[in-house]
């Protein structure tokens, strides 16, 4: 509806401002000017408002303004300043308030004010800092085209060592040029510009570029979030000192950028104007982070971390402006990443029980269990004290002891996975097979059939007795994996008749089946989570679910009913997770916040605000001191659970962060994004350890093995992939299929597309296990290191 509203669109604003400066004494000079003037007046009479609105964007003007410089270039009879004048003359004609009124440059502002209703215009004039002839010429769409072509040629023609540094500059300039064109109403020129230059940028910046292509009118530029970020925030680019020097040299002098065959264009006026346009963007919208590090030491993926709207995604801590996430991360000091302590009483009780059991079982090896129970301080990590943890009840229950005892046993009986065993081993030899069985996990796949619309979420309880899945049809389904019947309580009983456990047993439902539907939500269920209190020793007693209806619900698995609904978010909740010790849980929502809740209160305890987009996923640190969130603003953050402040920002994903996982040892965070990469972050330093690529569609779930040595991921490409956490990542690698190492010999001359795909897989991808047609929506390790994955089977005929 922008056409109807007299909003502050730029053509209106720029034209008078152009008049402001350039309606100089020579105004009435030439006869050609007269002709142009007449022509335009004729147009103006026909539909003044129309001319005012779409002005320069329409083809008539386009042609007009396009022709003039062309003729000037070819015949060279009209000098540059003449051209400026010409354009300057016709510009004021666009404005409705009569050309003569604005002739006098000194009185323009007054005149405009007198006309009223033009505060917008005034604002715009005021916002344009200095207007020279080049500003007017920026209305010519062709210089953007030309300028960007020159820039691209310069970047591609630069030395190989500088290319990775210079390439990131193309994208913001492309975006700004496009937005400029749209803002000035050159819709067709903008589309043409987009069509010409987007292909070379699309492989990396696909999402943003596509989003930009939907912006077609000036009003969109003003309302669209992405566009406004480009307009109002500085886009950071990291460059070495020498690289920056080269760039500046090219921008000012045109040194080094002679594209082959483009000599005329660059030395000519057009080239200069193009460079000037680039210069404007560079000056107004880019921030160069000039480093002294030599260019060669920069890894090819480093630009992901150092490029983008870093200022805005970095939380601003009290007054001091931190412009760099890295600076922010270091400013937040050290984190307590060590394992959570166990209360003294609970530990002694656990040890006592372990000793007793060792006696009963006459299992000599069991006494070694004890050392598992002892708290081991991980070297290099600061362990929190009991007082650092969120408050928990001071006493402990039988279930707590059971859980701790079971934890110790699990640690002893666990399948050990050593991905490092696979290094330097030929997999086709018997030793290779042995190494493989030591290194890679056994994976049990649970396939959901007839899921219809698919299942948004699925999870297993820690003792693997239950599986829960949430569905788009607003219900949750619970399955007993042990084949036991799931029974709730009858509703027709007298509470006075319940005295002891046996009478409670009497009111259990008769019959029942191994599956159960939990109904209560009024929107798709996006996340379910079993309470962790029982650990692997006892079945969980509660289930949390989050839904599009903006509620989180707590379900009792004793009664099989909904016991509480937590309201507070105003928007769909994307994720819910229990704290590792129960009681607390966190939710992530579309309303750009994550919140901390406790099960006994219906309102949130903490709100973690700061993300610039939806919070898509949430996860507690194993010691429950920190909370990690992944967001649609392409970053992940780490929050101090109790203080509610952000302590780390992880930038580097080139897409929405869709899922994340902490390593059990508390050192690392793995995040997966819509850019199909899995990033591994060191929590202490906030730096990226490595980037793992290989998935060909969204990654839905991540899980670390108990030793934190292996990462397993599942996604929409119907595969489960195993990654080596410890080894370094490099690409390309030889792909391994079905866990087999097929050497690529005999693959004669792979096609271009193939090579691209091949190079996607980094060397730390240990194995890929495809399923038939099952996107993997959940990956989990049991406490004994068996990997469980789940997903709905997509029957080929349904879609």
């Amino acid at each position, binding site marked *: 509806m922008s056409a109807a509203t007299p909003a502050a669109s730029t053509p209106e604003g720029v034209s008078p401002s152009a008049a402001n400066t350039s309606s100089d004494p020579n105004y009435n000079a030439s006869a050609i000017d007269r002709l142009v003037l007449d022509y335009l007046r004729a147009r103006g009479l026909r539909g003044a408002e129309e001319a005012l609105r779409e002005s320069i964007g329409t083809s008539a003007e386009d042609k007009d303004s396009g022709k003039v410089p062309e003729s000037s270039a070819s015949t060279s009879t009209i000098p540059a300043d003449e051209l400026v004048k010409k354009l300057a003359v016709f510009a004021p004609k666009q404005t409705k308030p009569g050309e003569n009124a604005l002739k006098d440059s000194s009185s323009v502002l007054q005149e405009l004010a007198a006309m009223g209703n033009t505060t917008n215009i005034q604002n715009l004039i005021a916002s344009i800092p200095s207007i020279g002839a080049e500003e007017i010429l920026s209305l010519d769409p062709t210089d953007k085209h030309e300028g960007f072509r020159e820039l691209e040629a310069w970047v591609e023609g630069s030395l190989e060592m500088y290319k990775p540094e210079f390439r990131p500059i193309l994208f913001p300039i492309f975006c700004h040029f496009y937005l400029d064109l749209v803002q000035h109403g050159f819709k067709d020129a903008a589309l043409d510009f987009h069509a010409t230059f987007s292909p070379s940028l699309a492989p990396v910046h696909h999402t943003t570029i596509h989003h930009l292509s939907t912006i077609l*009118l000036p009003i969109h530029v003003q309302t669209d979030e992405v566009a406004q970020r480009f307009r109002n925030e500085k886009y950071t680019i990291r460059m070495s000192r020498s690289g920056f020097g080269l760039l500046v040299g090219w921008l000012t002098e045109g040194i080094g950028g002679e594209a082959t065959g483009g000599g005329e264009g660059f030395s000519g006026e057009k080239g200069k104007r193009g460079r000037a346009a680039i210069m404007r963007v560079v000056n107004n919208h880019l921030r160069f982070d000039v480093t002294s590090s030599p260019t060669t030491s920069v890894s090819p993926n480093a630009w992901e971390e150092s490029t983008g709207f870093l200022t805005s995604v970095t939380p601003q801590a009290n007054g001091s402006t931190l412009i760099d996430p890295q600076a922010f991360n270091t400013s937040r000091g050290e984190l307590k990443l060590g394992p959570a302590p166990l209360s003294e009483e609970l530990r002694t009780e656990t040890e006592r029980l372990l000793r007793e059991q060792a006696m009963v079982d006459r299992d000599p090896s069991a006494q070694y269990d004890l050392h598992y129970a002892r708290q081991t301080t991980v070297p290099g990590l600061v362990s929190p004290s009991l007082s650092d943890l969120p408050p928990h009840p001071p006493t402990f229950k039988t279930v707590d002891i059971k859980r701790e005892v079971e934890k110790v046993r699990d640690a002893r009986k666990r399948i050990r996975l050593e991905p490092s065993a696979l290094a330097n081993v030929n997999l086709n030899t018997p030793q290779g097979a042995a190494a493989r069985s030591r290194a890679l996990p056994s994976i049990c796949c649970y396939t959901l059939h007839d899921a219809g619309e698919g299942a948004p979420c699925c999870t297993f309880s820690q003792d693997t007795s239950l599986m829960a899945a949430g569905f788009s049809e607003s219900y949750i389904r619970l399955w007993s994996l042990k084949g036991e019947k799931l029974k709730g309580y009858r509703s027709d009983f007298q509470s006075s008749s319940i005295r002891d456990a046996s009478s409670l047993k009497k009111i259990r439902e008769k019959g029942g089946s191994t599956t159960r539907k939990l109904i209560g939500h009024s929107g798709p269920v996006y996340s379910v989570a079993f309470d962790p209190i029982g650990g692997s020793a006892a079945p969980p007693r509660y289930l949390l679910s989050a839904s599009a209806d903006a509620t989180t619900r707590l379900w009792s698995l004793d009664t099989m009913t909904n016991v509480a609904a937590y309201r507070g978010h105003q928007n769909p909740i994307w994720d819910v997770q229990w704290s590792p010790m129960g009681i607390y849980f966190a939710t992530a929502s579309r309303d750009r916040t994550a919140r901390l809740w406790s099960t006994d209160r219906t309102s949130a305890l903490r709100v973690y605000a700061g993300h610039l987009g939806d919070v898509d996923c949430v996860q507690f640190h194993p010691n429950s001191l920190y909370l990690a969130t992944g967001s649609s603003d392409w970053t992940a953050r780490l929050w101090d659970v109790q203080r509610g402040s952000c302590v780390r920002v992880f930038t580097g994903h080139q897409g929405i962060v869709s899922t994340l996982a902490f390593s059990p040892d508390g050192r690392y965070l793995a995040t997966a994004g819509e850019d199909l990469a899995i990033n591994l972050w060191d929590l202490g330093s906030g730096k990226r350890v490595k980037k793992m690529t290989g998935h060909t569609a969204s990654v839905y779930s991540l899980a670390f093995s108990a030793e934190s040595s292996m990462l397993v991921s599942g996604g929409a490409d119907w595969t489960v992939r195993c990654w080596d956490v410890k080894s370094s990542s490099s690409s390309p690698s030889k792909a391994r299929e079905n866990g087999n190492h097929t050497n690529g010999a005999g693959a004669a001359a792979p096609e271009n597309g193939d090579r691209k795909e091949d190079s996607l897989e980094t060397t730390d991808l240990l194995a890929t296990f495809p399923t038939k047609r099952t996107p993997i929506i959940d990956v989990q390790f049991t406490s004994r290191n068996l990997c469980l994955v789940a997903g709905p089977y997509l029957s080929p005929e349904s879609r």
Partner: protein
Amino acid sequence: MSKQNSKARLPPNQLTGIYKADSIRDVADSLNITNLPDAVASALASDVEYRIHQVVEEAAKFMRHARRTTMTTADIDNALRVLNIEPLYGHTPHNPPTFRRALPFPNLQSAGSVYFVEDEEIDFDRVIREEKLALPKGVSWTAHWLAVEGVQPLIPENPPAIARDVEQEQIKPGSPARPGTVFPPTPPSDGPHQAAKKAAQQQQQLVKHVLSRELQLYYTRLTSALLPTSGAVDPTKRDAALASLRHDAGLQALLPYLVRWVGEGVVAALRGGVQSEADGRVLEVFLDVTGALLDNPTLFVEPYLHQLLPPLLSVLLHSSFPPTQSTNLRTAAAHTLAHLLTTYATTYPSLPPRVMKTLLLALLAQGRSAGTREGAVRGLVGVGREAVRKGLLEGGGARVVGAECAEGREGSWSVVDAVMDALRVLHPPSTQPTPLNSADEEDVRLIAQLREQLGDFFAQRLMGDAVWARGVLAGSES
């Protein structure tokens, strides 16, 4: 470069301009606004398109969180809801609407082509009468091993490696391989390996088993000696050939060929319906060859057992042989079978039970000819005493055969002989038989037991020898 690129990829305006100004004009017409200026229409179209994209981007979030790669109408509805716009009712993901083009409207040429959603009329009476609505199955789950210690087991639940290749081929080469663009409808391929695999497969086909000239010569001589294509069989030659098979070393390379020769020969002979004695003799030769192969200590026959057994069992259980040869052939086959089993039962413990199962089926199933029955009984004798006991006594084989013999089927005498032989295996008859005394109470009980276990027919025959009868029954009880 830019020109080429844009051509190679999408046509420039594919991403934008989906919503045309004409559509705006159509809508305006429907609202009786006929004089809509072009500029307004095009600006409106651009705006509408932008809004559509806004909704779609929002809907994409819902799609992603629902862990799907296909957007549904429900996603759009959810997006509209959170954008505070009233959802579009009536579109369910379960029946995607199909648009049909209306016939040209003659009265109003300017209307252009009109599309409408097909709305099928449903006759309730018919639906209620005819259509049985099946309730959809509830969601269920299955579990399988995706990987066991890092190796993907080749079970039906997991995708076969070769089928994946086929699937991969369907992906167009032009499909984008860059991240985040389009999710391929089928999971991704890794192209170069596919080619490698194929090359390997072809290579496998090309590599042939090289048989030395000498062995080839030996093979032809051997087969012609055993079964000359013309003229009578020279017994000495045949015996020599068999002896060579039985004792000579270095025939391992020929083994697969010989096994196949035997298999095909037996099938050919049996298919012809063994009419003449010549056919019978041919079969005999094949049995001899099988026996000889098993005898040869230098041959490693184990991998070919599954190929050797079918011809053997076919001969044993074939329904009709010429009466003169029937017993002979079956006995020979049973002998060879016994030989095979005694040699390999230890290495393949599952072999005797499997053979026995086949034999029992032949013995007990209805409508088998007497020949088959005889073969089965002889086969059981070959398998061993225990098998005879199981088949004839416990399984009721004797009763079945007895009943059939009592009916007086043709050729029943040989079956009876076979059964009696089998019973003799269970317990040798006494040299001086004393009949069971029908007056003695214990003997009466024994007779009853005999009748119960063996049926009247064979009970009658055993009654004459008390020791034997007791022995047979005792064997069954022990």
